[in-house]
C-alpha cells in the first residue's frame, strides 16, 4: 500500500543501504527540510486561494476566476507580484529588529510542525510532551508581532502590536485549559498516545458535553490567537490600516502572511488531533466490521480532511461575525471563557475519574 510511513521507511532503508549511516542521517535531514519547506509553500498557496474562494462563496460572488482554470493559479500570481515588489525599510525604523521579526514568525510556525502526526506512524518527532511543546512554542509567536510593531516607527503598527499582545496572551489561557481537558481524559501529553486513545471513538463523541464545551472554547481561542476575524483587532483595516505589518512590503510582508496562514493550519491540525482523532479513522466502539471498512480510507486523508474542515469553520467565522471592540474582546475572555473553562476542567476531571465516558 502507498502510505506516508511506507514511503518514509523505504527511503530510510535505501539511504542506509547505499550510504554510510552518518551520511544517510544528513541526507534524511535534508530531505525532511525540503519536504517541510514545500509543505509550507503549498499550504500558503492553497489556503490563500481557499480563503478567497470561501469568502466569495459566502458572499455569493465569483472570487478569483481569471488566472488559470477557475482562478487556480491566483495565489501563484500574487506570490510573483510580491516577489518583484521592493521590500523597503522605513527610515526611522529599528533596522535590525524590523528585519528580524518575519524570521521569528516563520521559525515559530515551522517549529510547530515537529510533533504533528500527519498520517499513521508519520511524524517528525514523537515527543512525549507534545502538547506542552506546542503551547510553549506557539506563545513565542507574540514576540514576533510585538517586535514588528515596535520597530516600525509607526503609531498604527505599535497600537496593533500592543492590542495583539494583550489579545494573544489572554486567549492563550483558555486555549491551554481546553487542551488540558483532553489531556486529563487521555492521561498523556504525547500526541501519538492521545490519538491512540481515540481508537474506539473520537473524544468529541466520547466525552459528552464537557468536551464539546472545551472544543467550542478551543476554536474561539485559537481564532483569537491567530489574529483572525472577528478577533482581528491587531490588523483592523478600518482602524489601523494593517496593524503591525503596516510598514512591511514585498517579500517580508509575504513571509508574515505565510506564517499567519500556516499558523491557522497548525492550530486546526492540533484541534483535529485532540478532539477529532488526528489520523484515526471514524470508529464506533466495538463495531469491528464498520471500523474495518473505515480503515480502508488512508490515514493521511482523514487527517487533512478534518484539518481542512476546521479551517473552513474558522473562515466561516470571518464572514459571519462582526469585529469586536477591544473591551468586548477582553471581557469575553476574562469574564466568560476563563471561568467557564476553569469550571469545565473540573467537570471533565470528575467525568474522567468516575469513568463516565464511552
Amino acid at each position, binding site marked *: 500500500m502507498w502510505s506516508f510511513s511506507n514511503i518514509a521507511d523505504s527511503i530510510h532503508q535505501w539511504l542506509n543501504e547505499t550510504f554510510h549511516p552518518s551520511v544517510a542521517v544528513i541526507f534524511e*535531514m535534508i530531505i525532511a527540510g525540503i519536504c517541510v519547506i514545500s509543505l509550507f509553500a503549498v499550504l500558503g498557496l492553497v489556503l490563500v486561494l481557499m480563503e478567497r474562494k470561501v469568502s466569495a462563496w459566502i458572499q455569493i460572488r465569483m472570487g478569483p476566476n481569471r488566472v488559470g482554470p477557475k482562478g487556480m493559479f491566483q495565489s501563484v500570481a500574487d506570490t510573483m507580484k510580491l516577489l518583484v515588489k521592493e521590500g523597503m525599510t522605513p*527610515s526611522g525604523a529599528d533596522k535590525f529588529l524590523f528585519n528580524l521579526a518575519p524570521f521569528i514568525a516563520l521559525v515559530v510556525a515551522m517549529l510547530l*510542525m515537529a510533533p504533528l502526526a500527519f498520517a499513521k506512524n508519520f511524524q517528525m518527532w514523537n515527543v512525549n510532551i507534545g502538547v506542552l511543546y506546542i503551547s510553549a512554542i506557539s506563545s513565542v509567536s507574540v514576540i514576533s508581532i510585538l517586535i514588528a510593531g515596535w520597530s516600525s516607527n509607526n503609531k498604527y503598527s505599535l497600537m496593533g502590536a500592543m492590542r495583539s499582545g494583550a489579545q494573544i496572551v489572554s486567549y492563550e489561557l483558555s486555549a491551554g485549559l481546553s487542551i488540558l481537558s483532553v*489531556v486529563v481524559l487521555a492521561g498523556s501529553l504525547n500526541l501519538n498516545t492521545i490519538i491512540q486513545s481515540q481508537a474506539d471513538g473520537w473524544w468529541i463523541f466520547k466525552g459528552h458535553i464537557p468536551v464539546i464545551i472545551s472544543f467550542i472554547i478551543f476554536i474561539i481561542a485559537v481564532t483569537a490567537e491567530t489574529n483572525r476575524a472577528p478577533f482581528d483587532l491587531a490588523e483592523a483595516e478600518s482602524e489601523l490600516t494593517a496593524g503591525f505589518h503596516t510598514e512591511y512590503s514585498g*517579500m517580508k510582508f509575504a513571509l508574515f502572511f505565510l506564517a499567519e496562514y500556516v499558523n491557522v493550519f497548525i492550530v486546526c491540525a492540533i484541534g483535529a488531533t485532540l478532539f477529532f482523532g488526528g489520523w484515526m479513522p471514524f470508529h464506533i466502539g466495538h463495531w469491528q466490521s464498520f471500523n474495518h471498512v473505515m480503515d480502508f480510507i488512508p490515514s493521511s486523508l482523514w487527517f487533512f480532511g478534518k484539518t481542512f474542515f476546521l479551517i473552513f469553520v474558522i473562515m466561516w467565522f470571518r464572514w459571519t461575525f462582526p469585529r469586536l471592540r477591544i473591551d468586548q474582546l477582553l471581557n469575553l475572555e476574562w469574564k466568560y471563557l476563563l471561568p467557564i473553562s476553569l469550571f469545565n476542567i473540573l467537570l471533565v476531571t470528575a467525568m474522567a475519574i468516575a469513568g463516565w465516558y464511552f
Partner: protein
Amino acid sequence: MGPSSMIVLIIAAIVFSSVAILVAKMVTKATTNLQKGEPYECGIPTHGKTWKQLNVGYYLFALIFLIFDVELIFLYPWAVVAKHAGWTALIEIVIFFFILFMGFLYAHKKGALKWK
C-alpha cells in the same frame, strides 16, 4: 527523527525566508526619494514621536496573564496523572482553583479586568 528535527526545522525556516528575501532583493530595483522612508499614517504628516505612553490596561492584563500562565504550567503535570490519582486529584485541584479564584475575584473587584 527525534530532537534533531528542531534543528532541521529552524534551519529550514531560516533558509526559506532568507532565500525568499534575497531573491526578491535581486529581482527588484530599489529607488529612494525624500518621502519614501516616512511612516505611512494615511497621508497625514507624522506628529511627534512614535514611542509614546500607551494605555496602562495592556500592562495590567499582561500582569494578570502572568499569574494565570504560571498556574496553567502547574496544571500540566497534574493533568497527566489525574486519572490515575483518582478523587484526591479532584479534591486537590478544587482547593487550588478556590485559592486562584479568590485572587481572580480580588482583581475583578479592584477593577483590573475592566478596560478603561
